[in-house]
């Protein structure tokens, strides 16, 4: 177990093993997500209440779902950074924060566009949308803090503390926003709550969710590889890898790139 941990902390080892996983993650992820999207757009039946606008669900729910889990993953990595000082954990947080912010923005955007045909307005202070908006603020705060601190190690640890404080707050924020929502508005029907969803609807949704997770795995590993290369650029193995006219193609991050 400890040896595994130690190995996981080794950037060189990580670079190689990540390269082996990435093609699979990208391939299967794209396959699942695209087939789910095609199914959802063209073949799933129309919703009897909302008509065809509900087809936004096939990207709205996966992005919202993933955006929230990415923050949780960052919090776990934050604990690892603070407790075990594992380098890869803070590489993960740094690499993944922009991706999480982009996904949150997508969830917000799709929710807003969906609101127009459903509620007749572009923005509605619905509990879920509001929570997502706050989540976006949290992501942007994490990114701002990370780039404001020059010293890499201090930046990583400061960001870890902020992410943890944020994650303690998220349930409180969700609860308070829900409560606030009932206080200010009569209950309308929610965007995504369906009493019963036929399999022709939820199977493609599930496909997109799983596909997007795998795609996230790919982009997270790719961005982590870049960050590892950047941090280790003075070390022997990176210099060998980058040797002018070297045999490897580093840009693809492929498994053959290193011969580890």
């Amino acid at each position: 177990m400890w040896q595994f941990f130690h190995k996981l902390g080794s950037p060189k080892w990580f670079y190689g093993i990540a390269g082996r996983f990435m093609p699979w993650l990208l391939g299967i992820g794209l396959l699942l997500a695209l087939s789910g999207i095609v199914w959802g757009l063209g073949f799933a039946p129309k919703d009897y209440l909302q008509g065809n606008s509900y087809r936004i669900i096939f990207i709205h729910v996966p992005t919202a779902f993933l955006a929230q889990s990415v923050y949780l993953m960052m919090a776990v990595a934050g604990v690892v950074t603070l407790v075990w000082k594992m380098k890869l954990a803070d590489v993960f947080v740094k690499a993944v924060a922009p991706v999480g912010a982009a996904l949150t923005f997508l969830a917000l955007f799709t929710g807003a566009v969906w609101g127009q045909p459903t509620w007749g307005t572009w923005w509605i202070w619905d509990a879920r949308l509001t929570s997502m908006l706050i989540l976006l603020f949290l992501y942007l705060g994490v990114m701002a803090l990370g780039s404001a601190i020059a010293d890499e190690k201090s930046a990583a640890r400061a960001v870890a503390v902020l992410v943890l404080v944020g994650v303690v707050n998220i349930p409180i924020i969700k609860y308070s926003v829900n409560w606030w929502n009932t206080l200010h508005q009569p209950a309308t029907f929610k965007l995504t709550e369906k009493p019963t969803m036929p399999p022709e609807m939820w199977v493609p949704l599930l496909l997109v969710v799983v596909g997007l997770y795998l795609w996230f795995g790919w982009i997270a590993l790719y961005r982590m590889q870049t960050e590892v290369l950047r941090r280790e650029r003075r070390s022997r193995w990176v210099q060998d890898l980058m040797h002018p006219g070297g045999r490897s193609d580093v840009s693809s991050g492929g498994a053959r790139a290193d011969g580890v």
Partner: protein
Amino acid sequence: MAFDSLNALIVMEGHGPYVWTCYGVFFLLLGVLVWWSLRERRQLVREQKQLQQQKTEASPLQAGSTAGSFQRINTSRQ
């Protein structure tokens, strides 16, 4: 197929613009994210390769001891 024709798929009974905007922005943003990540990597690799090539040539910034000589530099000389 839930739609009779390609046209019906695009129009989606009037909801087409909303749905297609969402999907468009979805693919655009994720595409930009991927492109940006790839570019970051390419830039890093290029810079690093250049750096390693230059390393053999001495640069005035690297030369000299850290103590420094504090000699005045004659700026009028061409």
